[in-house]
């Protein structure tokens, strides 16, 4: 399966208490705590990076950088609830993505995975091309607008969750989302017409 909808973590650390224990163990430098956090949040971080970069290899590199950077800064993490921990990882990821884009260290590529039997490579290519058009349209957005679109449409976070983790009001998030979508729609329209 190429697009694994179920692989978004959460099953291992659904229990809040277990997540708290994992964060505390990670803060003590214990490997099992880090492994638990890795299993829970790697898919989200990877999806965030891929949504921005569109390059599978680059997204994997950035995701790796995020977890390495998290090791040195986890002592600053005070809130051990799941949304806060997820927001903390995504916050690191956001800056790592920006760093990656600034460095321009890797040319973007589609990195098509066509090894899965039963899946039409043409359909995959079409989906990826459309996704690339969206990513190109998102170049017109601000960093905050991109961040909100990824949280809402890729990570499926609710308006309330996005508001809480980005320290905004629900109304502000809604307004930013509306403006961002409008900008994406405008950017996509001429291309479609062409």
């Amino acid at each position: 399966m190429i697009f694994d909808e179920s692989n978004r973590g959460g099953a291992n650390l659904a229990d809040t208490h277990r997540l708290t224990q994992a964060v505390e163990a990670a803060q003590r430098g214990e490997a099992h705590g880090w492994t638990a956090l890795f299993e829970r949040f790697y898919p989200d971080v990877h999806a965030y990076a891929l949504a921005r970069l569109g390059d599978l290899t680059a997204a994997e590199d950035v995701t790796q950088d995020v977890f390495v950077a998290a090791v040195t800064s986890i002592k600053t993490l005070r809130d051990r609830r799941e949304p806060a921990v997820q927001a903390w990882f995504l916050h690191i990821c956001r800056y790592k993505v920006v760093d990656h884009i600034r460095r321009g260290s890797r040319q973007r590529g589609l990195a098509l995975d066509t090894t899965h039997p039963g899946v039409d490579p043409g359909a995959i290519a079409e989906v990826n091309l459309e996704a690339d058009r969206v990513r190109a349209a998102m170049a017109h957005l601000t960093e905050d607008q991109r961040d909100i679109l990824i949280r809402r449409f890729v990570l499926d976070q609710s308006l309330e969750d996005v508001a809480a983790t980005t320290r905004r009001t629900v109304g502000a998030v809604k307004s930013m989302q509306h403006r961002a979508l409008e900008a994406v729609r405008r950017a996509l329209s001429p291309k479609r017409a062409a």
Partner: protein
Amino acid sequence: MTDWIEPQLSASLDAWRLSSRRTPRRHAVERAHDAMLEAVLVESRRPHARRFLSFSFRPRFRHAGLIATTATIVAAASVAAAGWNAAPGSALFVVRAARQGVMLKLPGADDIALHLEFAEQSLADATGHVNPAQSLADATTELHAAFTELSVDPSSPLWPRYKLDAATLLSEEGDVESERPSPAPTGETPGPTGDDSPSSSASERGDDETARPTAGHDSAPSPTGSWSGGNDGGGSDDGGSPSPGQTPHPDD
């Protein structure tokens, strides 16, 4: 989603979502996991000697924060040190006044002794010709405060010290008066007994008291002639404010 999104845009967003949710490759996941555990190992070996300086600044601002904090502490300490015994009239005199105010407010502080100490500092300033007028005014205020508190305790061992300071004050005031340029002649020469101005009487009394700082009851050195001379006519206090002349004397 709470807003309606037109179908074409919705289809594009779905494609973006599907594309972004691709499963990461197994070898990349394992590589990231290994790199993370390696970082955990390195982090655990790192000494934590600087833990006491673990400010919550972001790394990029940590040095700036440290520098700013250190500079603030050094600046505050410098101002406090410079103003600790600042001369009256100087810009940093407020520091000295604040320091004296704090010392008086500290629990368990001996207010009388402190007022006398502050008066003696002001008298020393006046003796050293450091803003004599202001110094004498400060000494007067402190002695007045000391007297107010002393008056409720006739047996206080601080009375002799107070008397000595009061005598010094009168002496210094006399010196200041004598150093003042005489007013322009107006044709009238004030008689020696006709001039009842507070400064004149204070000066005369000061000269007298300086010679005998621990004189007897009637001639006990009193700051009344100096501080209340200008306010209520010297020793002729109407009883509204305490005056050494009305105070029960320790020797009584």
